[in-house]
């Protein structure tokens, strides 16, 4: 939890063609200091009450978000709403199985989100592979590649389970334990190594602010 954490050298962005390397930043993510206790508690309260989901369906579980949005389950009453752009959203819902191809997009979108950011992973596939446990192209643990705050088990989890998961996320944020962004920055090299081990053709920037 310190800004003085040793910052590794600039990122090489070796996956990109030479002409494009200059278009992306070469600074790794840094950790952010928390505000003083009372301010941080107030902010965490506001963050918990205003969860903006990145509307990016990464798997079959995204289908469960639709009944959640509409009249039947109505997540708006809990201050949860979808946003179309990673810049403005604070919660990334991993909707079930993530193939390697999707993982590339997940990593890029996650890195583009502004902190503090939270990840809710739903479905058995994100936890231990689920029914895709022996698939040649589906990762088995999403928390090896991005930090996860809440898992929601089920195949598929019902919208009620999702609502319960979001309430759990709110408790985590209010308790000040939703520090996925700092976690990602602290173990950045470990996460990057895991990602690059799986994504064989790394043709994107090393850190996509």
């Amino acid at each position: 939890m310190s800004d003085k954490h040793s910052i590794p050298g600039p990122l090489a962005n070796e996956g990109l063609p030479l002409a494009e390397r200059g278009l992306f930043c070469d600074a790794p993510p840094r950790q952010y200091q928390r505000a003083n206790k009372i301010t941080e508690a107030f902010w965490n309260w506001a963050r918990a009450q205003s969860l903006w989901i990145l509307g990016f369906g990464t798997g079959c579980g995204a289908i469960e978000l639709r009944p959640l949005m509409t009249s039947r389950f109505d997540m708006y009453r809990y201050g949860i709403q979808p946003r179309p752009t990673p810049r403005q959203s604070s919660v990334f819902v991993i909707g079930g199985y993530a193939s390697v191809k999707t993982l590339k997009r997940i990593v890029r979108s996650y890195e583009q989100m502004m902190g503090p950011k939270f990840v809710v992973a739903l479905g058995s596939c994100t936890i231990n592979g689920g029914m895709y446990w022996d698939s040649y192209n589906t990762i088995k643990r999403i928390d090896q590649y991005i930090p996860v705050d809440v898992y929601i088990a089920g195949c598929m989890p019902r919208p009620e389970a999702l609502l319960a998961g979001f309430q759990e996320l709110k408790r985590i944020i209010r308790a000040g334990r939703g520090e996925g962004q700092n976690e990602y920055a602290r173990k950045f090299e470990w996460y990057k190594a895991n990602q690059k081990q799986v994504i064989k053709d790394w043709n994107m920037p090393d850190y996509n602010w």
Partner: protein
Amino acid sequence: MKELITSLANRYGVRDWKDLKAGQAACFVDSGRLRDCLRWLRDEAGYAHLSFATAIDQLERGVFTLTYALRNHERGHSLLVHSEIDRTRPVVDSIHRLWAQAWTYQREMKEWYGIDFPGSPRVDEEFVLEGWQGPPMMRRDFDSLAYSDATYAERPGRASSDPAEHMKRELYPEEQA
């Protein structure tokens, strides 16, 4: 129908004609005469529509079975043209000049089974996988589980149980005792 079978047999050595159901039949042709046979079927016999093309891995016999599904819309009849190629030397004539859409199927077969179609457009490009470095993954000798175990991190503690046994234990615990 009779004369179609006869002329196919005479011209291209087509054999094993089999009526699968009303309006659908299958037949077999040698891979060397496959393209000529398909052209004749398209131009002369009215099977102008290529519904799909796919491959089946016959690991035990050491061959790939290629299947081309054609349809004659005028007579309402579908024909599955099978052909076999050696598994160790999977090369076959491209039919993208007969049906322009065939290059997509051929690109798919190239990526999934490693069957080559020389001259087919973009046949060497990635189809659904990105950055795949292993062997063609739909071949039956590709061990998906071993690849998955070696590549993707696993969460410890995963166990599997027989559903019948598990439900028996859950629902009727007294019988276990």
